Every structure is written in C-alpha cells, then in structure tokens.
C-alpha cells in the first residue's frame, strides 16, 4: 500500500497545476524576451511532471513506501496546542507588548504542554522573559512593541 505517497504526490501535482495557471496569467513572454511567468512556469511543469511520474510509480508499486505515519500514541492535542499558541502569540504581540505576551505564552507552554508544576512554570516564565529582555532589548537593542499597557 502506498496510500500516503499517492496522497502527497496528488497534492503536489495540484500545486503544480495552480502554479502553471498563475504563471501563464502573469505572462511568459518569448524566448528572446522572457516574461515574469516563464521561470515559475518551468518550476510548475517540473513539479507536475515529476509528481505524475512519482504517482505512476506508486500505482505500479515501485520504490519504497511511506508507512505508519501516525498511531494511537501520537499526541495531537499537544501539537495543535503549540501551533495555536504560536498563532496567538503572533497576533497579540503588537497589542499586549512583547514582555506580557512572552510571560503568558511561556506560562501556557510550560504548564499546559510541558506539564510542569506551578512553581516551576512561574519561575521558568519569569526568568526566560527577563533573560530575553536583557539579551534582546537591553544588550542587542532590538525594539519590541510595548502594547496598549506600555509594558
């Protein structure tokens, strides 16, 4: 069974088709005066053609198959929580300021995902935020947002 390989190659062939359509829309120009779409079109064609060959090989069971990607022990909750927390950090950093969001985010990651005790969580979050402030803002002079609280 090469189900996963079929899925992934079909995905890339789809991406290649989208690239080709958009590249043609940009204008491929001529060989003596290449347009902005020519090079991306070439990339899309290579991706699509090689993807189709790879897909064909999965149908004929040639090559090495990818198997057993996930199982019952896969910790989906933790992975999704990390991704969501990173997104929240990105969207809130300008609003809340660097120091506050870093403190809260570290607390969430240490307690919620790392399963640390409360004391360790608070200690790690405060120390990390302070260290980041000293290193990046004070020493390296990087200006981070202060947010609506001016922190």
């Amino acid at each position, binding site marked *: 069974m090469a189900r996963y390989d079929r899925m992934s190659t079909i995905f890339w062939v789809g991406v290649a088709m989208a690239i080709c359509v958009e590249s043609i829309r940009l204008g491929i120009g001529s060989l003596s005066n290449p347009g902005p779409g020519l*090079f991306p079109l070439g990339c*899309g064609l290579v*991706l699509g053609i090689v993807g189709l060959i*790879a897909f064909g090989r999965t149908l004929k069971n040639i090559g090495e198959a990818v198997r057993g*990607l996930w199982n019952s022990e896969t910790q989906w909750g933790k992975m999704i929580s990390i991704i969501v927390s990173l997104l929240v950090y990105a969207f809130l950093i300008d609003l809340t300021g660097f120091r506050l969001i870093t403190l809260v985010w570290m607390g969430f990651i*240490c307690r919620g995902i790392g399963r640390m005790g409360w004391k360790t969580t608070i200690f790690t979050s405060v120390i990390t935020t302070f260290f980041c402030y000293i290193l990046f803002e004070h020493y390296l002079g990087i200006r981070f947002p202060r947010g609506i609280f001016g922190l």
Partner: protein
Amino acid sequence: MDILQNIGFGFSIAFTWQNLICCFLGVLVGTLIGVLPGIGPSATMCLLLPSTYYLTPTSAIIMLAGVFYGAMYGGSTTSILVNIPGEAASVVTCLDGYQMARQGRAGPALGIAAFGSFIGGTLTVVGLMIAAPPLAKFALRFGPPEYFSLIFLSFSILTYLASGSILKAIMMAAAGAFLGSIGADFITGDLRFTYGSLTLFDGVGLIPVIMGLFGIAEVLENIEKKVEKREIINTKFRRLFPTLQDWRDSLASISRGTLIGFFLGILPGGGTIISSFASYGVEKRVSKHPELFGRGAIQGVAGPETANNAATSANFIPLMTLGIPANVVMAIILGALMIHGIRPGPMLIREQPELFWGVVTSMYIGNAMLLVLNLPLIGIWVHILSIPYRILFPLILLFCLIGVYSLNNNIWEIIIMIVFGVIGYLMRKFKYEAAPFIFALVLSPIMENAFRQSLLMSEGSFSIFFTHPISCALLITGFVLLSTQALPWFKRKPFVDEF
C-alpha cells in the same frame, strides 16, 4: 610567499579580542546545540542572526562558522553516549560509537572523534587556503550561462546524493525554486504571486522558512511522541586519549575522512551529512574486518567524524569563490553576508581580504578551542544531555518567535514560519527532504536571473548554454548525473516495508 603573508594577515584579524570572543561564543554555542538533540546548526544560526547586526561582517561570519563546525564536534557526544545523534551528520557515529561506549570505551570513542575532527578540520582549512584563490580567479570567466549551468549542476548533485527518493528531491527542488520566484520580478518589476501582501513584495524570507522547516517542525516531530527517558552510558572519562593501537587503527580512516570531507564539501550540493555517510561506507568497504562495523569498530567513528568536520571548512569554498552556497548552512551565511551588504563571489577575496583570511584563519583557532572544550569539559556536556526536552522545547520555540519577529517586526513573518513549520513536519512524515527545497529557494533567484540574461544575450537561443565551453561541460555533467539516476528505474522493485 603570498599565502604565508595572507595567513599572517588573517591571524592578525582573527586574533583581535572581538573576533576571539566571537569565535569562542560560536564554537561554544555550536557544541551546545550539537550536544542537544532537537535543534540543529541551521536553526541556531538563524536565531543568532539578529545578534550579528551589531558586529563587523568578519566577526559575524567567524561566529556563525564557529557554530557550524562546533555543532559537528558536539554532535558526536550524544551519538556515542546516548545513541541519539545531536545533529544529522553524526547519525552514522551512533552505529559504532555507542557500541564502543557500551563496551566501556566511551573515552577513546569521544577522544578519537575530537582528535579526528580537529585533524580533518585544520587540514581542510589548508586546502581551503590553497584552492580558493585560484578558483576565484577562474570564476572571473563565469558569465550568466556559466552560472545557470553551475546551479543546474548543483541541483543535479543534490538530487543525486539525496538520501531518500530522487523524485521527491526533484519535486522539492522545483517547489523551492517556485517559492524563490515569489515577489517583485527583478527585470520587469511585476509582482508575482504576492496577492496584495506587502510582506511578500521582497519575496518569501529565507529565515522564517528555515526556522519553520528546521525549528518548529523539529519540535512538532519530537513532541508528538511520548517522551522516553534517555539512557546515558555511565562511564568514567579519565582515559579520553586513545591508545597507541587505537591511533594505529584510526590514522588511515582519519586521512581518508579528510579527503572525502574535503572533496564532497567543495561540491555545491554536497555537505557534512553526505561526507560522513560516504566515509563510513568507504571504511567498511576497505576494512579487513567489515563484520566488526556496527559492533564498536573505532574506524567507524574516526572516519565519519573527521569527514563531517572536513566538509564544514570545504563548504566555504564554493560560497567564497563563486557566491554559490553548498548547502543550507552556507545559504544562511550568504544571508548574513548580504545583511552586511557583501555579495560573495569571485571578487570577494580581492575586495574583502580581511573577511576571507580572517574567517579562514579563525577556523584554526576555533578548532583548537573545540579540542579544549570537548575533551576536558566532556563531563559538563554529559550533564547538559540530562536536561529534559520539556524544558528545551519552549526555549527553542521562543527563540524561533523572537528570531523571526526581530528581523522586521512583522507578525506575518511569524505566520510564514508557523506555516512552514507545519509543512516541514508533514514533509518529514511523508519523507520529503527539506535540503533541496531550501537550496532551491536560495539559488533560484540567481538561476532565474542567469537564465533570463543568457536568453537576452543570445536573443532567445538555447545554444548559448552549449557554445560556452565551461557552461557546456557543467550542463553535460549535470545531465549525466541525472540520467544515471534514471537508469535504475527500469529495474522494478516492489515496495519495501520501512518497519
């Protein structure tokens, strides 16, 4: 005489306090991240990029280079003591290094890895000094068709040496090349695939993509599994110096490892991982007792560890002479140089001699520092190994966030990093390699520029790539490599279970 003068000039640069401190910090951080599984040199160098804004270009590159070869030293420690490679180039060291440790010979294994790395690293620097200046002179003959063909050859080598499926490697190279074309077209000024996003006007940033593919994806991959307690081999580190017999057994392996690392490191598309695997293969093949490999053969540690360090210095040759990064790490160094307004290429040695000779000679100093850091202080690195991953991963994630945000204070670059983190995680699961993707992302703008300029020069004729002798030779070599890859497809093989 010229070269001696240049070495003297280089040492006068490398021995300034600022450069010595940068070199020490680089090798220290490199060893640390080499020891710690879960973060590699690429992500670390990205994290350190903001700190280089305030350094001179020479100091910045000395520090980043130190991280790279320091990681090669540190990576062997975890391979030998825990059977977990600290970074990818030390994977093969696990096979015999861990077995040596189980037999109570962790000291000689760590010792020969450190000495081999030192010998390989320093000898290759000599090669770098000798090879780079004439190669740079030769590269002055390169025009757009030659650059296009050279990059084509680089892609061919990269896919030829890919550890997984060749087809998947080509697909990743094509996808990376497409990604590199996003942003304003450098000839017409048209915006390509930006869809109104200001962040994408200058293209997709290299740093957010690398942080995502190597930092976030690594954390996601590690966090999905239930954490197993690492078993660290409990050994005394009094006898770190290999015995006379160990030296006799390893000397030829170290010599071969140096040569393999140097020549594979020079090739654009080659690198430390390939060098260490090639060295292990060669050692096993030339050994009179190949059956001992995998059971604690010291040659299986000495060869690969020497080769991966030799390759780190050799990797600088294509970057410093042609402006072509040999791998992802060199692409980051290229990025760091460009941040400082320096475009590496054939003129670099002439126009920035303090940068070239300062960085090269600092590698001698860095390798000597690493020998001191890795042997007497091995006990400290072993203690660092016992830091649980639940403490490490929040720090890795936080440094990724800060590293990307501090580039332009742009939250959309964090979003790009997160997206590529998820993509990178899926690529790892579906066995798509990230290296060709990043490599193409970096090189595709240069390749497209060379391709379009060549066509403009020849008024649309592809013959320009074949009428220029250097370009023709490079293209033919590339095609030969690709076609040798295609030949085995005619032999059908059934699917092989991975487990």
